[in-house]
């Protein structure tokens, strides 16, 4: 008893001291993020400075531009920085947009199912499944995509006629937009499901009961009351999933086709079978050219673009979610 009353933590662990130590650590982490932003932007700046706004625009073949950039370090005739990233940005928009839209629909239905309709055995099965799908490493998705999905699409879904129709421009092998979208959807939907189910199950039961008491059936109640009340969380989950999708590099490097080609929806439905390459996989594929200064600047410019979109989406999602928490509390 006597020992318990002795101050175990003397002046060495006084509150002020602990607070200062933890505070220093926190300031260090904040500083690290700032350093990261500064380093990435400074290293990427030459590429932006030489191209101006046309960096984001179309023009020329990106793969040719990238190899010209990395070779210009050795020619001695001055560095080349000309880079027009539009095909890569367009591919990012198509793949991430497609996956987020598909994922949103899937995740909404699954979360409604989980919170309201699934029998106990089903939800006991589905919840671990969702968590498992979220935790499978992206390289495994990539491997299965390359060895299973891509050959299937290439051999069975794309007709010979379709292959012949674009033979002069690009070869359709199965490495395609649709493969990338499908696998990315499976990767990001679980993330949305976990946020959506949290939100749906925290909707006040009274609101739902009120609707049920008016004779509205359970299906319409959950969609009209539950899903609407959870709207901020749905926005937040979607935005967070978008941040994850934009940053996905390895899986997409494996199955998106790795050709800097911009599939054009105006060509008809065939565009979903066309290969492309988003921004993040471009860095992975060209990372061995980091020793060439202009290539390094170009890669860091891409990284700057990814950094700002990823971090902004993540922040926006977190803020929306916090607003939801405040509103759902009490």
């Amino acid at each position: 008893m006597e020992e318990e009353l002795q101050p175990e933590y003397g002046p060495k662990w006084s509150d002020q001291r602990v607070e200062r130590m933890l505070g220093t650590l926190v300031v260090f982490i904040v500083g690290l993020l700032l350093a990261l932003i500064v380093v990435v932007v400074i290293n990427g700046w030459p590429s932006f400075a030489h191209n101006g706004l046309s960096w984001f625009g179309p023009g020329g073949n990106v793969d040719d531009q990238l190899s010209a950039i990395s070779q210009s370090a050795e020619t001695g005739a001055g560095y080349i920085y000309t880079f027009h990233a539009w095909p890569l940005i367009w591919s990012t928009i198509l793949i991430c947009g497609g996956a987020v839209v598909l994922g949103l629909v899937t995740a909404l239905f699954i979360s409604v199912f989980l919170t309201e309709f699934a029998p106990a055995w089903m939800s006991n099965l589905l919840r671990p499944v969702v968590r498992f799908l979220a935790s499978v490493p992206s390289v495994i998705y990539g491997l299965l995509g390359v060895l299973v999905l891509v050959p299937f699409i290439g051999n069975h879904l794309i007709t010979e006629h379709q292959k012949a129709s674009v033979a002069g421009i690009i070869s359709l092998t199965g490495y395609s937009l649709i493969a990338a979208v499908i696998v990315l959807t499976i990767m990001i939907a679980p993330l949305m499901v976990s946020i959506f189910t949290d939100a749906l199950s925290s909707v006040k039961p009274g609101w739902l009961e009120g609707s049920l008491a008016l004779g509205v059936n359970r299906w319409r109640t959950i969609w009209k009351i539950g899903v609407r009340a959870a709207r901020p969380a749905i926005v937040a989950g979607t935005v967070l999933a978008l941040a994850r999708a934009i940053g996905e590099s390895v899986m997409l490097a494996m199955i998106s086709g790795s050709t800097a080609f911009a599939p054009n929806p105006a060509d008809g439905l065939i565009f979903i079978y066309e290969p492309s390459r988003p921004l993040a996989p471009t860095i992975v594929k060209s990372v061995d050219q980091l020793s060439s200064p202009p290539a390094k600047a170009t890669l860091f410019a891409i990284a700057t673009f990814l950094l700002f979109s990823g971090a902004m989406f993540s922040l926006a999602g977190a803020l929306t979610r916090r607003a939801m928490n405040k509103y759902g509390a009490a």
Partner: protein
Amino acid sequence: MESSVVTPPPPAPPESKVPTKAVEGSATWSLVDRLGLAFCWFLGLLFCAIAAAIVIYLLIQGIKFLKLSELTTPAAAGFTEGESGGFSDAFVGTLILGVMGISMALPIGVAIAVWLVEYGRPRALARITEMTIEAIAGIPSIVLALFGTVIFTSTALGFLSRSNEGVVFGRSFFAASSMLALEALPLVVASTREGLNAIPRHVREASYAVGKTKAATTRRILLPTARPQIATGGMLGLGRIIGDTAIIVVLLGATQNFSPVEGAPFPLDYLRGAGTSLTNFVYEASPTGNLNQPQKAYAAAFVLLLMVLALNAATDLVHRRARKVGTWSH
């Protein structure tokens, strides 16, 4: 009056939920609503089927191609899959990265969470820290990897990797695991904060009332209570670390074997040298990588999947045990 201090708080009232028995069936619904519910079932079963397909397919391939010798022999140069050795270095590399990464992420993450929840002053710094953590969660791992190439090739950090006549290689287990730790940090912080926030105020006040300092309260009462959540956060972070590929491809060096630095004492020579991990091995051994040995890629992916499954099961176990202990009544 005295009784209000010493009596334990009253047991939580039973949760009021919409009764799950005797709810209306879907028989009276309109066709559209019933189709919607059918779609829910379809998607739920589809998710289960996808997860089962991934596990079973990799299980079959793993049993077919995985030999125990592959876990004990390092990769070697060879023309056929029979000659090119196993992936023991990758397996050990994943273990090293997991241990190093989580031993950095866990203490730092817990410290940040403690500061955020228990101290959090000045308010502005707390807000900035929260935003920093959210932003770090949204940074694509490939951007973290590029940032790592810049800071770890600086001469000041040359002691963490191989350096040759003043030129720092910048790729080592130290470099990769510290960036992986940064990637896992937000998960640890979020989970620990959740745990700390769930402890009601009166627990802290009771501890202060018997003369404990804030530091002692945190160390003796709060952290032990939040242990399940801290463990969950750590395991989520560990899953992220062993599943990441982009950082390892960029920051661990393009090699399939350990390459220890000569002249350094035992563990440091390996940790300062380049290496590989299972994810990197799968990426390189897939048909789109440099090695193109799909059989071995399957075997390595199977080992990786087993690790992920074990981690998931462990997380579940911790979670369930935490729930059995019971929640605080407010």
